[in-house]
């Protein structure tokens, strides 16, 4: 038998060190485990502070003993390589393991063991743990805000329909693939708006927007038979003409009467709330801020100096102020800028404000992508005789946007995380509803449960988004 040198373990007495080290390490974990789960104190016979640090010392010696390079035992090598490379790492690993063991029991007991899951009043929650009955009772409100209970199916149906229509892109056959961009950029937002307006809000059947839709549909159908040469002018002039004709000539009297008919009960936007409002606001802001940001970024890189400086001023202004002041502006300052009889709905103002705000950030992200493209791409496109728009649509933007997927995803994530700020104008999405529920005299003292619940919800949404953007990034990654 070789001489044992405790201070520098080597391969010669591998198994002696191994057994000794593993048993010391396990002992230290056992001590902490028993202490934290069963509040048994094995080390109480040792005085004072020493007993507090004993598991750490034992574990440290144990890890020191099994730190043998190239031992030939796979399991041991993995441990050594990953958590036990040197003394400092061993100490940190031990601390983290102990912290996990220590914090598990209180967390478990708060979340599950001592928590109350049933009941519909405060009295049901007597345990020391969380009161999930509170979340259960208020779940409806957290999801839908003050939206009348009987009408909530409208929100559900709209969301399911929109999710379904949004997923169409995955199932489209090759034949329709080329129209997908058009669909997502133009048609889908319009459908979404119609759903929100008619279904969730319960607006009147005919309003200005529907004339526009009819005009657009008619002109598109007729447009197929128009020679390409005139198409450009046709699509500008005809829809406007049809719109004016429809509104002021043909159906003027009838539609005023019709316009007062509502299919569903009107629910004002002040009553919307909860998670559904979070979705609505982020959805529309997402849709609006992207094109605005795109144009701003193009404007900032334009040769036309007036457009360039207006874009720079616009971007830098929005990027320089906090969102909360923008919302303040939209709620107290903006009404001053409108004619007395003109009224824009609170929700619409908020969506416009957030969209403009995020558009400035999107613009900067896209500018990064545009700048990253080599000059040769521009020159090549120009040498093929492409004009400004053709060059950007077919050559520059597809490459630039691909480069900035992570950046855009981050901006969109920031947007979703910014939606709770709309409490400033009095709209209560999920966090706002939590604060309202917290002050309900029958349910005082459950702030923690509410915030934990909302945190989990937001975490799931944002984490899923970031993972999705990562997948997208990998999918469109091309070697340059």
């Amino acid at each position, binding site marked *: 038998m070789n001489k044992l040198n405790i201070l520098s373990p080597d391969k010669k007495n591998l198994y002696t060190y191994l057994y000794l080290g593993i048993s010391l390490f396990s002992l230290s974990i056992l001590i902490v485990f028993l202490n934290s789960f069963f509040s048994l104190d094995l080390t109480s016979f040792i005085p004072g502070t020493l007993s507090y640090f004993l598991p750490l010392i034992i574990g440290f010696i144990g890890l020191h003993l099994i730190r043998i390079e190239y031992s030939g035992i796979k399991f041991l090598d993995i441990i050594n*390589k*990953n*958590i036990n*490379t040197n003394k400092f*790492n061993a100490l*940190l*690993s031990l601390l*983290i*393991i102990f912290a996990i063991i220590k914090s598990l029991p209180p967390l478990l007991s708060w979340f599950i063991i001592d928590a109350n899951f049933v009941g519909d009043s405060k009295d049901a929650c007597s345990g020391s743990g969380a009161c999930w009955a509170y979340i259960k009772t208020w779940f409806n409100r957290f999801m839908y805000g003050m939206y009348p209970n009987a009408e909530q199916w409208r929100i559900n149906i709209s969301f399911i329909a929109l999710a379904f229509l949004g997923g169409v892109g995955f199932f489209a056959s090759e034949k329709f693939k080329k129209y997908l961009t058009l669909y997502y950029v133009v048609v889908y937002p319009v459908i979404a708006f119609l759903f929100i307006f008619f279904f969730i809000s319960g607006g009147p059947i005919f309003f200005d927007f529907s004339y526009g839709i009819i005009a657009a549909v008619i002109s598109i159908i007729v447009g197929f038979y128009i020679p390409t040469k005139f198409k450009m002018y046709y699509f500008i002039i005809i829809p406007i003409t049809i719109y004016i004709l429809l509104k002021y000539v043909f159906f003027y009297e009838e539609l005023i009467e019709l316009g007062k008919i509502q299919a569903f009960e009107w629910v004002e936007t002040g009553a919307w709330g909860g998670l559904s409002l979070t979705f609505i606001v982020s959805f529309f802001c997402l849709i609006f801020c992207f094109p605005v940001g795109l144009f701003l970024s193009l404007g900032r890189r334009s*040769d*036309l*100096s*007036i*457009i360039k400086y*207006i874009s720079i001023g616009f971007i*830098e*202004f929005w*990027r*320089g*102020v*906090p*969102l*909360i*002041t923008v919302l*303040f*502006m939209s709620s*107290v*300052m903006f009404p*001053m*800028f*409108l*004619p*007395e009889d003109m009224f824009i709905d609170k929700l619409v103002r908020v969506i416009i404000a957030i969209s403009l705000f995020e558009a400035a950030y999107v613009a900067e992200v896209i500018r990064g992508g545009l700048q990253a493209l080599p000059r040769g791409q521009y020159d090549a496109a120009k040498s093929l005789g492409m004009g400004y728009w053709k060059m950007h649509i077919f050559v520059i933007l597809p490459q630039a946007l691909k480069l900035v997927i992570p950046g855009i995803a981050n901006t969109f*994530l920031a947007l*979703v*995380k*910014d*939606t*709770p*700020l709309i*409490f*400033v104008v009095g709209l209560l999405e999920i*966090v706002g509803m*939590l*604060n309202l529920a*917290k002050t309900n005299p029958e349910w005082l003292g459950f*702030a*923690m449960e509410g*915030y*934990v619940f*909302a*945190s989990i919800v*937001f*975490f799931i949404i*944002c*984490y899923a988004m*970031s993972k999705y953007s990562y997948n997208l990034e990998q999918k469109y990654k091309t070697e340059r």
Partner: protein
Amino acid sequence: MNFKKLLPQLLTLVVVILVFGFFSYNAQVNMENRGITFGYGFLSQESSFDVQFSLIEYDGSHSYFRAYLVGLLNTILVSVIGIIFATIIGVIVGIARLSNNYLIERTAAIYVEFFRNIPLLLQIFFWYFAALRALPLPEKAEPMFGVFFLTIKGFFVPAFVWNNLDIFIYSVIAAIIAIFFVRIYAKKKQENQGIQTPVLLISIGLLIILPLVSFLLGGVDASIQIPVIEQLSKTSFTYKGGLKLPPELISLALALSLYTATFIAECVRAGVQGVSKGQKEAAASIGLTPNQVLKLVVMPQALRIIIPPTTNQYLNLTKNSSLAAAIAYPDLVLVFAGTALMQTGRAIEIVSITMLTYLTLSITISIFMNWYNKKIAIKEK
């Protein structure tokens, strides 16, 4: 002039002017109807409202301008605290993310993923309404180290009472200037003779010795005032003496630094990873010690990648500090755009001042950063 280039510019200009004209015309009409005249004269009027927490002397008899200053200082205070802590946590977590220890790397990763995927406002609410509300009442608070009291009413810490504070400050400034000269001297010496001077040790020594001298010779004298519990009424207690950090400030600073630290950690990680392995190997192969490799080769290159996005995060933190309004921490938005606006009804003036303040703050910092960026950028030939 090319007509094709001129037309879009003119059109844009006309649209912008029209929109602005429309807005300002309406604003004029609206203000006339309400009988308000546009102007900033109200800033010198008596404000007649109180602010709970202020760094400068302030009460209702002071002017609105003073209230603005109070709010601005509070914003700067919480931003500076947040920036300091966010940097410390962010750098530690960022380095931990690069650790070869699986447990450390995972812990850091979980922290980053968790804290940056939850809205900041929610985190502020969590700390303020849930976590800090679980703290004990002043009369039941256990002292930490005998002198700190963490209670539901705030964090009470001992305060320093200084005599001849100015001499102490001069000594610190003198020490900093001396360190500056030592560094120049050390650099020169190394360039001329190739001999290295232990700058760090000398700096620490100077920082300790000069203030110590000021204590011994300059008549500087500091005593510590420990907070003592005091009974206000039968059931209400508080601490007297010492310094009180209100819970609003604590929860705001906590949430801001924990949230921003996740972003800074990612910046640090990207920066260190951005230094190619060849650089480290090259440095090691010419005989630099690991510490020198880090200090002279890795850090200068990593900092060049780290600093621009990190400044951006500092700016974000400063702007995010405006969320203070949600938990009634008297920052610029709450004091000025909240209370003062409510009292005077001057929406346009107050909102524009508030926005301009933030705009000035961010533009100043970004101009400074651009200058710094240019200075440290690699000069390619």
